């Protein structure tokens, strides 16, 4: 039971990291907390579902189209809404929250909830590892998350655009003097965040079904992971995913599934009390300021 729980905890960690990484990337680069993140996640999932079941497109095309659509949508959100309220923290929060709300509630108004609203698994197979039944989809998620995080790290440390991202993240004004267009970078950051939300949805949704509630859930989990890890830090996301992922699985197995939420909430409160800016928080020096 212990080994099985550990395996599932690892997978849970990967899922959490996958959910949070897009939100975290956007915040890390442009300092915008995209509260429409959950909506973008669900939107991509419904998008693929519609393309598969209503338009009968091949899977690969549907997936690529959904990711691209999300990228464009993210960019549009910045270009048409956020650019007008850029720098006003209150307005940014309300605007993205409003967008997310409108999208999610729209889907629940249509009543698109149920078991038929799900995406196909990539490979329908399962294995027994150390006496535990694990299906292929979960293994793919685990592997994909590892590659994604390594890829992102490489991207931000070794490509020019990634370095520009980091430049903006560290000091926007100085970056401007080096000819980095901060609006363009912010557009990209939201867009990439949205794209990552779509990717996360494609891998994670097949484990369950698509519903607007899933959107809120993803947002909450992404927020929890980011708060614990420290906003804007990829290392923090990985670390926090491990903590929450393992804590959730182990309380589920040994105490009871009711308690998983309490454990997450407790983790958030404890981290906030002990180390307010999160485990890997970089914001501390400038933002805590008391």
């Amino acid at each position, binding site marked *: 039971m212990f080994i099985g729980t550990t395996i599932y905890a690892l997978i849970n960690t990967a899922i959490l990291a996958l959910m949070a990484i897009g939100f975290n990337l956007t915040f890390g680069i442009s300092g915008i907390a995209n509260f429409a993140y959950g909506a973008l996640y669900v939107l991509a999932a419904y998008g693929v579902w519609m393309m598969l079941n209503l338009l009968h497109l091949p899977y690969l095309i549907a997936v690529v189209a959904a990711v691209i659509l999300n990228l464009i949508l993210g960019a549009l959100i910045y270009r048409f*809404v956020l650019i007008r*309220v850029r720098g006003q923290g*209150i307005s940014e929060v*309300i*605007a993205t929250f*409003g967008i*997310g709300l409108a999208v999610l509630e729209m889907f629940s108004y249509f009543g698109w909830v149920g078991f038929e609203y799900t995406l196909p698994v990539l490979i329908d197979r399962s294995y027994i590892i150390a006496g535990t039944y694990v299906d292929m989809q979960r293994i793919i998620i685990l592997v994909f998350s590892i590659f994604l995080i390594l890829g992102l790290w490489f991207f931000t440390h070794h490509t020019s655009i990634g370095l520009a991202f980091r430049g903006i993240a560290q000091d926007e004004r100085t970056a401007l003097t080096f000819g980095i267009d901060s609006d363009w970078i912010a557009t990209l950051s939201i867009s990439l965040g949205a794209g990552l939300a779509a990717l996360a949805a494609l891998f994670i949704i097949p484990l369950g079904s698509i519903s607007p509630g899933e959107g809120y859930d993803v947002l909450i989990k992404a927020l929890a992971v980011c708060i614990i890890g420290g*906003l804007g830090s990829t290392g923090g996301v990985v670390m926090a995913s491990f903590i929450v992922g393992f804590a959730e699985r182990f309380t589920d197995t040994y105490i009871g599934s009711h308690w998983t939420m309490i454990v997450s*909430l407790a983790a958030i409160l404890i981290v*906030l009390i002990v180390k307010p800016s999160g485990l890997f928080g970089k914001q501390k020096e400038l933002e805590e300021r008391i």
Partner: protein
Amino acid sequence: MKKRKERIDRGIKVRSTDIFALSSWREMIYLALPRLLPIVGCLMLPIVLGVYWQKVLLSVAVFALLAISWDILAQTGMVSLGQALFFGVGAYCAGVLNHYWGVSPFITIPVAAIAGGLICTLFLLPVLRLRGIYFSMVTLIIPIMLVRIIEATKIFGGTEGLSGMTPLPSKWVEIYLIMGVLLTVLFCFRRMLDSDYGLVLKGISDNDRSVINAGINIYWFKVQSLFIAGSIGAFSGAFMTHVYMFVGMPVFVLDYSILPIAAAVVGGPGTLAGATLGAFLLVPMSEALRGFGGLRIVLYGVFLVVFIVALPEGIFHYIQRKYHQFERWVEVEK
């Protein structure tokens, strides 16, 4: 030929704001009207309206209080995405007191307001040290988690909730209690925000370094603002518990978080009167749209985005400007 809109304060406004020698009834009415109108309106409406719209008025007042509470926080630089937390905690405080110990509503409501404010402040205390964005995140998370926790641990009646609360003596007590509180809160805290104390609170959201540099502990001021807002929210929750004679998980529902934000944003943040006005517009509209179910919330979402982008000052400021200034087009360039 280019033109520019010029805005000039009405003479009557210039004379009446600073100088206290009011010369005519006209000027006195000009000054008093914006204050008398809502007071008379709030006191008369319950008499004029039928039973159904009286109920709507109740929820208008409750949402107005929540919107005021949101606005006070926003003025201090804290954007709450979970007013339901304040509402729900207040509701459960009153519910538990009344259900388990049979305490009278006239005691549970004030006690729940204070205790609810304290509990919410304690919950959010760790976040206050951080930038505003953390506050938004945590307020969004906590109500949702509390729902799941109540569901899981089955405390306070679990999913069933607690029912059989003592109602208030009559519907007239109900409606005049909430109206009285709304007017008191509106005028008192509007005055507070205009005072030097309010200036310090606004200073914290605008330029916290400059406030710290005056030797002011901004953390402590944020705690005060949070307690005030929390208590207002908790009061409305406690009140509703006794109106519905029930408290349960629905008190944490998204409506109680979204509608107040929408009301404050549509009405115009920063004045409290705007938040109240917003509630008086949105809640009846939402009643009228009841048939459309979830579409109401979609509408709020759209409102939020449109107003934040296109009319960030909100309706109240717009009306205020029209009342105090006249406008004309002047040529600036041939």
